[in-house]
């Protein structure tokens, strides 16, 4: 007798449980949304939802804590690593995640970024680099590229006047304490999958109580850049990655 064949339907990619059900306010094609999804997936997979405290920045992701079913903490602009330090010192057993943009981490918050890393605070720092200040209407960021036109560099960023863009991973790589430093991107599927792997490492290092971990994620800002999401993804590939090379810089 011939056995019958039955088609079984299995869900292989769904909506992460740790992601709140509400719509996110990010623009179509924004890198924040993609990273939020990856982080929520990892919170599910690593089963850390009840231990997480997410520190939000000031910037487009100021409402990030609305989008995850975890405890959330505000931070003044640039001060997320300091707030995270206070939280982690009180709750060494909890997962303290600082999520920041380029103004928050590399302009006003440079001191807090460097010193939390230097002290080796056992936190996870996620840095979204989209080379612009999105929330306030598209001003120049410390990571905006030379000749990039923004609301406050209308003739293009002039390095002779305002300096070259800053590479956060390489900057932190001068410090002793950080365990893990990697730069990723979410402009295509291959890079997004690698981003998730790096994010997992960043979280695992805190789960095992080992130390400070940092991941920089190159992201699209279609609205800030004045392009379509796909054009934005292409610009990350063609313009950002040559200046901000992807890859692991430190993995102790």
């Amino acid at each position, binding site marked *: 007798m011939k056995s019958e064949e039955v088609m079984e339907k299995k869900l292989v990619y769904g909506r992460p449980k740790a992601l709140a059900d509400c719509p996110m306010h990010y623009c179509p094609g924004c890198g924040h949304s993609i990273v939020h999804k990856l982080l929520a997936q990892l919170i599910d997979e690593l089963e850390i*939802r009840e231990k997480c405290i997410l520190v939000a920045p000031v910037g487009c992701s100021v409402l990030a804590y609305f989008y995850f079913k975890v405890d959330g903490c505000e931070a003044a602009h640039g001060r997320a690593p300091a707030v995270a330090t206070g939280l982690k010192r*009180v709750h060494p057993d909890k997962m303290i995640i600082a999520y920041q943009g380029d103004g928050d981490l590399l302009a006003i918050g440079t001191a807090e970024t460097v010193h939390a890393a230097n002290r080796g605070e056992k936190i996870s720092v996620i840095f979204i680099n989209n080379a612009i200040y999105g929330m306030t209407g598209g001003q120049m960021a410390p990571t905006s590229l030379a000749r990039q036109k923004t609301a406050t560099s209308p003739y293009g960023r002039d390095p002779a006047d305002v300096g070259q863009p800053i590479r956060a991973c390489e900057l932190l790589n001068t410090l002793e304490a950080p365990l893990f430093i990697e730069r990723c991107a979410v402009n295509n599927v291959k890079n997004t999958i690698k981003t998730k792997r790096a994010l997992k490492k960043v979280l695992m290092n805190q789960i095992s109580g080992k130390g400070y971990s940092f991941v920089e994620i190159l992201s699209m800002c279609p609205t800030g850049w004045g392009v379509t999401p796909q054009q934005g993804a292409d610009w990350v590939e063609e313009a950002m990655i040559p200046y901000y090379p992807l890859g692991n810089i430190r993995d102790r």
Partner: protein
Amino acid sequence: MAEKVLMKGNEALAESAIIAGCRHYFAYPITPQNEIPAYMARRMPQIDGTFIQAESEIAAINMVFGASAAGARAMTSSSSPGISLKQEGISYLSGAGLPAVVVNIMRGGPGLGNISGSQADYSQATRGGGHGDYRMIVLAPSSVQEMANLTIKAFDLADEYRIVVMILGDGFLGQISEPLTLPNPSGRSFNKASWALTGAAGREPHLVMSLRLSPEEALEKVNLALQEKYRVITEREKRFETYLGDDADYLLVGFGTAARICKGAVNSLRRQGVKAGLFRPISLWPFPHEELKAASRRVKKLLVVEMNSGQMLEDIRLALYASGDADSSPSSAEIDFYGKMGGTVPQIEEIIERVISYEK
């Protein structure tokens, strides 16, 4: 029998914070409060507490934000220019309803100023150096013993009302050594389980935030609740002391170190047959307006003595018109002012001379 110990004001304050259960302290060095971080750097590791010399006063107040959001008693200390840096953080703590103790050991200003003690941050403390409709409870110790006692009180008030409490000292109080009895813990505890960030296990997630973008009136509701809180605090938490005020003809009004000098002046004047007394506000916010008005009705003149340009005069004038007490008519007491700025110490002889001149 509690023993007396000899301690510097700054150190007595630090030890009392520990007695109050503070186990998380963050600060940046600045004169004349450096004894506090140095003391905490030694003591916190002994009791498994956290001491971090932060990268700036801004980082320190934000570490306090995090530790307080986590449900712990947290403190930072600084002096005038560093307190200016903390104003945004104080506003955020206030908007988020987080308890915290912030110590200002005042020095001469404005700007970099000098490292002498002064009282020139009264307006900043009581009128809010930070932005928005918020208040801090402001306590003004006048002795090393009070530096200790008011610290115990500060942590309780902060937790009870979920408010920032500022201990407004000055460089002299911070630096002098006096014998004191270290206070006992108050024995009060406060349950923070309904709001503290501890990981969302078995409950809905908690959010600590001061941002209320929408609906538009959400921020108004938060502000109305804050104002109600401040109204309750104004009713319950005024603190002041009078010294020989009942039969006084002239009332000196001063806080902190200025009040110590005034007390000496009062004693000297009394020996010379001049009936002087002292009214010493201990809570600068809420200010004891009605109580000062009542005291001022009995005297011919008030002499306000401050180590600043006269920042407390506004509250003195408000006091004379205060309407919260039984007799709502204003007091007609005259106000005189004796002040020294730039970290200069008021001279007791000049104060005595000024009061004696009233008799002529």
